[in-house]
């Protein structure tokens, strides 16, 4: 990182000092390092990412191993808790901490995969609608309206229950359902960029439409795209948890945070930690992605607030 003041060309100004303005990238980087929400979000996501990568090392027990002699041991800060199971055990005697750690894999995997599928669909539709306008725009807007009219959770639950729940199905169904925000945002940003001079220059230079979309327009709406993508990961994770909570998402015995809340619900009056622990984990992860997304928006594209 270079400083504001450089002494690279002494003599020219006669003072031995020359003012060098920071590049826009440096400004953005400095603003990010000052943005508390962004840093907090980033910290949460780094921690969770480390959990998913290091799960086999960090987990003290097999997340699937049942031990009916060790059922419903409370976490260590409660009476009768012990350090062998720091977060206690569930109703089947499985170590709660290990399930929580492995559960982060499910959340992140589903969140990122759904975001990629939805992002691909939504960005393509948004680009085409924003660039070509006219009939194509009408058609894409129509698709967005239809999509918004359908109750997403209900449709997802129905489809998953009919086809059968598995991680792959959940990812596919959610990915095909939640592309709407990508399409809306990318369409609007493309419409703003479309009439700019550099697009006209590329057109008159004889660039192909694909080249204009991929090399002129897409890089310039990257900021907006990253913001939506971050927030959409959070939405996908939330939807997966809701689906699993309703029993129509990831199937037992997979450790998913939504499923852990659903399984703990039966015992929550006597063992509230069964739902507070995975719930807090889920809440923190969602908060992390939301803070990160809002932070990036504040710094790179404040007009979209």
């Amino acid at each position, binding site marked *: 990182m270079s400083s504001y003041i450089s002494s690279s060309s002494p003599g020219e100004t006669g003072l031995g000092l020359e003012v060098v303005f920071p590049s826009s990238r440096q400004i953005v980087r400095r603003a990010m390092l000052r943005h508390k929400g962004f840093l907090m979000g980033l910290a949460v996501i780094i921690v969770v990412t480390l959990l998913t990568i290091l799960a086999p090392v960090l987990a003290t027990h097999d997340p699937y191993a049942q031990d009916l002699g060790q059922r419903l041991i409370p976490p260590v800060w409660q009476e009768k808790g012990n350090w062998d199971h720091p977060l206690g055990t569930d109703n089947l005697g499985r170590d709660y901490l290990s399930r929580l750690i492995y559960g982060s894999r499910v959340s992140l995997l589903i969140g990122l995969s759904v975001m990629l599928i939805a992002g691909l669909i939504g960005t393509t539709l948004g680009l085409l609608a924003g660039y070509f306008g006219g009939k194509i725009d009408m058609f894409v807007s*129509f698709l967005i*309206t239809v999509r918004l*009219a*359908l109750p997403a959770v209900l449709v997802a639950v*129905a489809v998953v229950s009919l*086809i059968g729940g598995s991680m792959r199905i959940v990812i596919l169904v959610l990915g095909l359902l939640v592309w709407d925000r990508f399409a809306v945002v990318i369409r609007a940003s493309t419409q703003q960029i479309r009439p700019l001079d550099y697009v006209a220059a590329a057109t008159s230079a004889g660039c192909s439409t694909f080249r204009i979309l991929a090399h002129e327009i897409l890089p310039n709406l990257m900021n907006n795209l990253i913001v939506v993508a971050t927030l959409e990961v959070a939405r996908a994770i939330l939807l997966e*948890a*809701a689906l699993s909570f309703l029993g129509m998402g990831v199937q037992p015995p997979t450790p998913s945070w939504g499923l852990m809340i659903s399984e703990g619900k039966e015992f929550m009056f006597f063992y509230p930690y069964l739902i507070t622990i995975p719930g807090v984990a889920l809440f923190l992860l969602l908060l992390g992605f939301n803070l990160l997304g809002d932070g990036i928006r504040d710094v790179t594209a404040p007009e979209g*607030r």
Partner: protein
Amino acid sequence: MIVYTLKRLALAFLVAVTVSMVSFMLIRVSGDPAIALAGEAASAEQIQHIREHYGFNRPLLVQYLDWSWRALQGDFGESPYFRLPVSQIMGDRIGVTMTLGGYALVFAVLLSLPLGILAAVHPNTWVDRLALGIAVLGQAMPSFWFGLIMIIFFSVTLRWLPVSGTDSWRHFVMPTIALGYYGTPAFMRLIRSGMIEVLSSDYIRTARAKGLRWPTILFKHALRNAIIPVVSLAAVQFGFMLGGSIIIESVFALHGIGYLAWESIGRSDLPVVQAIVLTLSLIYVVLTLLSDILNAVLDPRIRVK
């Protein structure tokens, strides 16, 4: 105005037709709905009987036209589980969902309107941060988990409110808060940014220069303009809340159509699922149609677009 209304009506009609096709195809995603309806223990003969009874052996287009023609007259067929007309079952339940959705909408607006206005009038103060904090927490809070936590706190620990059921207004308090809070962030952000934009406009400066009293400026001049997009958002959010009721209603065992949908999915009562998806989608289509027309009445600029 008439041209705009007609165009908007045509769009709503097309969306409604497409949505009805999706709900029609929804129960056919797994292939043969007769197998799903018959259950696992059914013989080939029983499946064939169901296929003929429901007319699944006819061409798809014929089935669709027949189904949609009947649906248009309010006849959604018979529920194989209850052995009753689907419309009758839904008629008994939809009031609860509408009540919940209405309460939740009022809750969200009542919470976000004063906070949003205060945040806009005093940006970057503690009020602003409080409003933003409530919005960010609302985005990250899984509503089903929030509901369970409230049950533990208000029903079990404090014994103030009933855990589940539909009998009195007390049963609606926690579901309203859980569902309403989920809708709050969108309102809060929209009201805040709308008010900030309006308050910095020329006509507000003129009003202040004329010496008008501040409350008059705030509520009569500024809020009136900032509230227009809130009307559209309310229509959209009400639709989303009805869709999200499937989660909240199953947490609180509230006997609305969301809970009915969840139960019906679990027992393969497909005609009911189909009818609920269609009904919720059509409610959304009608709501957004009305809000668009209302907006065009309030703001003439929209009509010519």
